[in-house]
């Protein structure tokens, strides 16, 4: 296998266009740079503005070469949608961490009756081939309670911040958030971030 450098973290963020995935990886990338790490990130959007699969590869460490995470290489899969999560099962490294927002956005083919959405059991089984560190998170529900599901990305970052071995300080997280978010929605987003952190507080893996 490819040797992995010290302290290297590969985080694959996946979901559906419009969920704020690229902004989330930008915010974490900027924060990691501010703490002195080498950072590379690349996004795959396909063609449409909204509604298609979106992936962001975020790589951090002492020295990062490739922009893409390789199959079997992701330390953490941060999935904003369940179907998109399981699409990337082969990218999780053995014993890696899978964080899934417990929310389904059925693609059009399901509405048209041409395909079937995978069951939670199938999703779980798929990941168990690689790891048993599978965390279902109520991100959409929690952010709806906070008033706007568009803060899902920031909630998920808060959750991730507690589980990632790269320990970015709260100060740097908030600095990065404030640099990338409009001032009028900053406070509520910081609440979403903290709510994410609280949701991860009891997790023990």
């Amino acid at each position, binding site marked *: *296998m*490819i*040797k992995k450098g010290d302290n290297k973290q590969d985080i694959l963020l996946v979901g*559906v*266009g419009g969920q704020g995935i690229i902004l989330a990886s*930008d915010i974490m*990338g*900027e924060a990691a*740079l501010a703490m002195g790490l*080498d*950072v*590379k*990130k*690349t*996004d795959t*959007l*396909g*063609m*449409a*503005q*909204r*509604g*298609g*699969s979106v992936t962001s590869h975020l790589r951090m460490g002492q020295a*990062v*070469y*490739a*922009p*893409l*995470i*390789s*199959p*079997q*290489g992701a330390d953490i899969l941060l999935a904003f949608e369940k*179907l*998109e999560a*399981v*699409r990337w*099962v*082969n990218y999780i490294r053995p014993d890696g961490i899978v964080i899934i927002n417990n929310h389904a956005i*059925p*693609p*059009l*083919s*399901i*509405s*048209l*009756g*041409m*395909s*079937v*959405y*995978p*069951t939670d059991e*199938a*999703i779980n089984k*798929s990941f168990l*081939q*690689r790891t048993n560190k599978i965390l279902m998170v109520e991100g959409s529900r929690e952010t709806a309670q906070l008033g706007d*599901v568009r803060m899902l990305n920031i909630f998920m970052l808060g959750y991730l911040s507690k589980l990632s071995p790269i320990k970015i300080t709260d100060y740097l997280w908030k600095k990065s958030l404030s640099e990338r978010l409009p001032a009028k929605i900053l406070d509520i987003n910081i609440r979403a971030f903290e709510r994410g952190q609280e949701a991860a507080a009891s997790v023990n893996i």
Partner: protein
Amino acid sequence: MTKSKKLLSGNESIALGAYQAGVQVAAAYPGTPSTEILETIATYKDVYAEWSTNEKVAMEVGLGASYAGVRTLVSMKHVGLNVAADPFMAAATTGVHGGLVVISADDPGIHSSQGEQDNRHFARMARVPMLEPTDSQEAYDFIPLAFEISEKYDTPVLFRITTRVAHSKSVVEVDESRARPPRDKHFQHNIEKYVMLPSNARTRVPQMHKRIAELMEFAETTSINRIIDGKDSPGIITGGVGYQYAREAFPDATFLKLGMIYPLPPRLLHNFTAKVKRSFVVEELDPFLEESIKILGIPVEGKAYIPRAGELNSLAVYDAGVKAGIEAKTERITDVKAVTDLPGRPPLLCPGCPHSAAFFVLNTLGQRTKKLDVSGRSTNETNLIITGDIGCYTLGAYLPLRAMDTTACMGASIGQAIGIEKAGVSSKVIAVIGDSTFLHSGITGIVDAVYNDSKITVLVLDNGTTAMTGHQDHPGTGITAQGITTKAVDIEKLVRGIGVKDVQVINAFDVKAVRSGIKSALDKDELSVVIVRGNCAVKNKRRKNQRQVNAGVCNNCDVCLRIGCSAIQKQDGKVHIDVYSCMGDECGICEQICPKHAIGPLS
């Protein structure tokens, strides 16, 4: 110190590097993955930056600016260079005055293009030098060098990037002390250099060969071609993003890292391969380096093991090394996949898209849901032949709309429609093209249709922007790349001026009007143009009165699902509309087509 570390994309780094190198004129047509280069340059107020009508015009603007003595950047995607090939070859022949750097952004893996091509071949064909960075830092550092080479060797420089350099962000040490050189503009009359009559062009050609010979010497010693010492096997020769994958897969190898991809340095290559046991070329797409090195009589390997199509990644390069026997076979983790079949999630037209009603109408007029096989193939001729073009609206080919029969390249829909009609088919033929694409290269097709008395219908889907690449302005919007209000080209007047008699302009969200407009155009036995106009949904910020389904009235006929709107979903046998994505009053298409009148504003 005036240095600071920033996380920048390759495209942003090129723009900043060019700005600091003194670029005065920049021209481009949007195209993934190149678009952000010009977008970034346009923010510098002391540079002239334009969205050109198309890549050919961009190259010509660039060439003129270079002749006038200023440093100039022209950027485009890989297929854009096909469009610009004619002036590019001319630029290669005349040479330059102010430095001229041409960015070609290739798209391995075809993320957002009609095809995969390796534009490194253009450098050899045009006999121009080519540089290729491997990350943002190099993109930033190589650009000033590219301008210097251009001016010193009297040649345009091809600067090739690929998606994972253009669209990856990596750390750049920005040097704020780089001084922007002063503008030195003057055009010098020089017929032998600038007027390519055959007699003059003939004298230029030997100079092109001479400059490549000189550049070969430059390549021997330039610091962007360098050796990274390691173990004596394997020796890896690489350039572009392939270097990054190879470095990760084989961290202990010895590398010859080439920043200048054409021309290559023969002595350096000989010396490098002589000191390692086995030489392996790692490059994305074609064996461009491999074949160029083999021609020098140097034995190297590469594409026998490394995939030729699509993007590479570190694991693919590692696996190739194991297959080639340059890496000891170690325990390999077995690949896994989901335990169940996964539905795809193809890109879709957005909720509230102004193209939706037109495609819904084309689908129903052509009876395409009934007559066409789900597989996308059919032995029968369709009732209505729909030639398509490049833009968001190409997505009209997908289910459930299925309203497109062809897509080739920018502007091709109109010429293809003429050809299909002239071949003598019995069906009506309609070309579908967006506003930006029409202005890019649809106009000459219309001229052809008028001149040759074609009977086709041309549907111009006018959403007032270049949407697919991220909403750039174009000649029809009346706003320049730098945000200045200017004259807008009026598509209706333009096609009337060319000589089209039957021209209609229709509101894109009025389904009845779209249907009767297209139908009347198709029914007539003459050339017609139907402009379907409505604002792009993504630019539409006002959302009110989102629609909902009255479950008591809905009889589950599923007609609304045939719009292909992602806000309209069916779960557990019930249709509902997602309030977060519905555009409400800005659209209203589903409400108009519901046979049971079961859809209305949210109560």
